[in-house]
């Protein structure tokens, strides 16, 4: 029974804390650029405002367009049940390993790209085309990175990976393959969550937008669901990185008393991760679309190097 309670807690934490983390990133970004921030709670206000608004649908929109926000939200939430955020003792983590997790994000992206094409504007198609191009380079790279992690812990189950890494000594963790995988993971996480230098979540300029172009026609509760899912995706990529590379402090199986401590560590980790993300975002300029290829190619190469070094050196 207890694992199910932890599972439920974790999903609720994801739903509640994802906008908070997005607010934190926005706040640090404002500070670092010498602006006044709208506060930690602005994403909550945005989402609740969108939920209260009516939906305006394009005339040509089919059921795909209306179904997509729910599917994206559902797939992201399910992914949240699989990634160990607070504890490795998750009953849902056995339903999908890390490969299936990548595929869950892929199905959300598949439908969002379809929704972009559904209304029949040039913007939507442009966003879909660019998103699928980036995804088709980012997905193999992220799979290579997680394969390298799974080779080190001899399992593709995320709970297992977190457990093995957190319970083994430091020599086991300081491996060249994991270093390569981590570098690759950071680069891909930036691409997958649509941050600078790959995509800019704050712009609506047609030359540069990718994700925003696909969801341009969304409004009301549909947009709220997509925005919320986007924040959860950012949160989940951070948790994925934390679970796979820095799992220390995560609660082990059956250890309920470690949960508050795990939460404390989580806040520290996420606070730092947010600052690092902002440093990357403010330090770099957005890349031209076809430079993204080189960026993701480098990530892919790093991840493959990681796997090769595991096969050859370890």
């Amino acid at each position, binding site marked *: 029974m207890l694992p199910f309670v932890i599972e439920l807690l974790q999903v609720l934490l994801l739903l509640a804390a994802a906008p908070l983390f997005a607010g934190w990133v926005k706040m640090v970004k404002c500070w670092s650029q010498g602006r006044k921030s709208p506060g930690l709670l602005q994403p909550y206000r945005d989402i609740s405002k969108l939920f209260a608004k009516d939906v305006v649908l394009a005339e040509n929109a089919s*059921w795909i367009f209306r179904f997509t926000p*729910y599917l994206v939200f559902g797939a992201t939430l399910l992914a949240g049940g699989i990634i160990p955020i607070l504890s490795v003792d998750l009953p849902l983590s056995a339903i999908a390993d890390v490969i299936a997790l990548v595929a869950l994000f892929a*199905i959300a*992206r*598949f439908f969002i790209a379809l929704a972009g094409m559904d209304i029949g504007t040039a913007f939507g198609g442009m966003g879909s085309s660019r998103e699928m*191009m980036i995804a*088709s380079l980012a997905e193999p790279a992220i799979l290579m990175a997680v394969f390298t992690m799974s*080779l080190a812990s001899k399992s593709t189950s995320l709970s297992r990976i977190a457990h093995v890494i957190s319970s083994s000594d430091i020599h086991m963790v300081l491996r060249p393959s994991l270093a390569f995988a981590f570098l690759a993971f950071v680069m891909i996480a930036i691409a997958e969550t649509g941050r600078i230098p790959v995509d800019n979540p704050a712009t609506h300029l047609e030359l540069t937008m990718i994700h925003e172009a696909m969801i341009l026609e969304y409004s009301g509760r549909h947009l709220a669901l997509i925005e919320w899912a986007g924040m959860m995706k950012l949160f989940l990529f951070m948790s994925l990185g934390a679970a796979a590379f820095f799992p220390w402090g995560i609660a082990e199986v059956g250890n309920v008393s470690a949960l508050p401590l795990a939460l404390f560590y989580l806040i520290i980790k996420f606070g730092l991760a947010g600052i690092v993300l902002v440093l990357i975002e403010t330090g770099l300029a957005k890349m031209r679309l*076809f430079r993204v290829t080189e960026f993701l190619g480098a990530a892919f190469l790093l991840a493959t190097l990681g796997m090769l070094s595991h096969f050859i050196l370890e």
Partner: protein
Amino acid sequence: MTPTPLDLASLSVLLLLSLVLIVPLFRKNQGVMVIAGFSLASAASLLAVISGVWTVGNGTTDRSILALGLPELPFHLRLDPLSGFFLTTIGLLAFYVSVYSIGYIRGFIGQRPVTRLIIFYSIFIAGMFMVVLADDALFFLISWELMAAASYFLVMYEDERAENRRAAFLYIVIAHIGAVAILLSFGVMAGLATGFRDFSGYTFDAMRASKFPVEWATAAFFLSFFGFAAKAGVVPLHVWLPEAHPVAPSNVSALMSGVMLKTAIYGIIRITFDLIKVFPWWWGAIVLVFGLVSAVMGVLYALMQHDLKRLLAYHSVENIGIILIGIGLCMVFTSFNMPLIAALALTAAVYHTLNHAMFKGLLFMGAGAVLHATKERNMEEMGGLIHSMPWTAALFLIGCVSISALPPFNGFVSEWLTFQAFLLSPSLPAPLLKLLMPIGAALLALTGALAAACFVKAFGVTFLGHWRGHHKPHIHEANWPMRLGMIMAAATCLLLGVLPTFFIRWMDTVPVQLVGQTISASAGEYGWLWLTPVAPERASYSGSIVFLGISTVVVAAYLLLHVKPGTIHRAAIWDCGFEKLTSRMQYNATSFSMPIRRIFGYLFSIKEQVRLRPQAAHSAFPRRLNYVLRVRDRFWVWLYKPVTDASFWIARKTGRLQQGRIQTYLIYSFITLIALLLFVR
């Protein structure tokens, strides 16, 4: 006496062959002929499915000898789990497609001769059944040729167009080059099995019983691999496939792409694991490399297509590649004596064989429904079909999601199993493989992601947005038999995706027969809900819970947000204040794939031309703009053009002998006779 599975299978073949005699009886009433012909074909296919499911489930082997064929060379039939599995796959898709054809071919009545279509269709299916039932080289090759010839006539069906005739010719040429290689391979094995003194070496039993020296085994294997690869469309022998598959009627395309290619996979598995049995690891590495190249090149070429059926045909190249990856891995693991991982790789390969048959059949049936409704194969002219063809759109979407390897559908399960096999490879001792395996896993991942991009394009451009063509025809939804065929295939895709444990447990007799190990003992360790190959703590996946989980959240969110009704308004799309949006401004198939074309451009031979016609007043304002893009297969230029040029050159040179004068010919005969007399003496 109770009937054996083999009796059922033979009955099914007989029923299909008897259609050749039955169908012409209905010549007066073609409507009845279509219904009767395809109903009988579907009944026969169902019989084959029953016999296949039965054989695989019980792991039995039946044999019989038919006193047909040449004197002293009777036909041998054998139905073992491997044959049973392929019989089930072929039969299942043939059943769905036959139901679909009742509706699809009805539209041909009065426009085209239907009789010969039904006749060749049933011979084609019978040929495929016979290939997997054959247990000697003679019967195998006869069935193989029957299948090839019948499908040639089906590709030639719409023979008024020159491109169709050309495609059919290319198809039959490559099929025969392949068949010659297979014949030679059987020759090598038969010769080694019993020597050339008597004829009994032509049975598979004799080949099974003998041990081949490694150099001859290598020759036999690579000859047969070449032959089967030509049939399966493995890169670089794939060029006929995207030409021939799209021009056949769509029900036939579904069968050709869905299951005819699989008979070649069957041949590879049969010869490698059942007849030769012992092989060095580098065979597997070569198969693996061919699989990887086919997978990546297939999907990249598919992305460049704007003809819906050609796009699907290139995806068959990709999926054959994925199956070969599994087979190659299995061969590597078998030769290093790791039966459990070999069983995992083999299960992945044969599971993908079944999956690909289902979703590719579904997609081709969907493309047929679109073709039927719009008379159009070019995606650039389509768009917005989801409004007028909701059923076809939804079913085609299921096919797209399945082939893109997205959970909870079936394509994901087999790719997941293949990845698991890759991840178990660090234990391999050969250093070369340690380099190959990570690159292989990376390429497989790339393939999956590109396939998703390709099917966003295929579905998005065909079914979503607005109609792109100049004249919009009246578009009607597919009729009920067509829908029924597609619904059954789509349901199978979902079932194979959410309940993989059942199917893997059912087919575990196949890996037991071929590599002597099964993954089903560990695959069901957590119970039927969980797929756990090797060990539960290593990896687990539950398609049904993923499906349930997503559906629950979707339904819950939908219900929660619709507590207060009536808050959806429809409005025109936002045009940036431009006011003159036309449907030609949408992204189309060519523009969608432009970023990927630019990244991987070096793999294609691309000719891109932009022609501006300036206005007289000022050259900065063009009056007209022409954009021409031609993307071609590099392999045409690299491989096929030299061969065709060389053969034309030789033909021209030898043509000089032909003078048209009888005196010269008599001199040729005379010289030949003298020469023979001198040499043979």
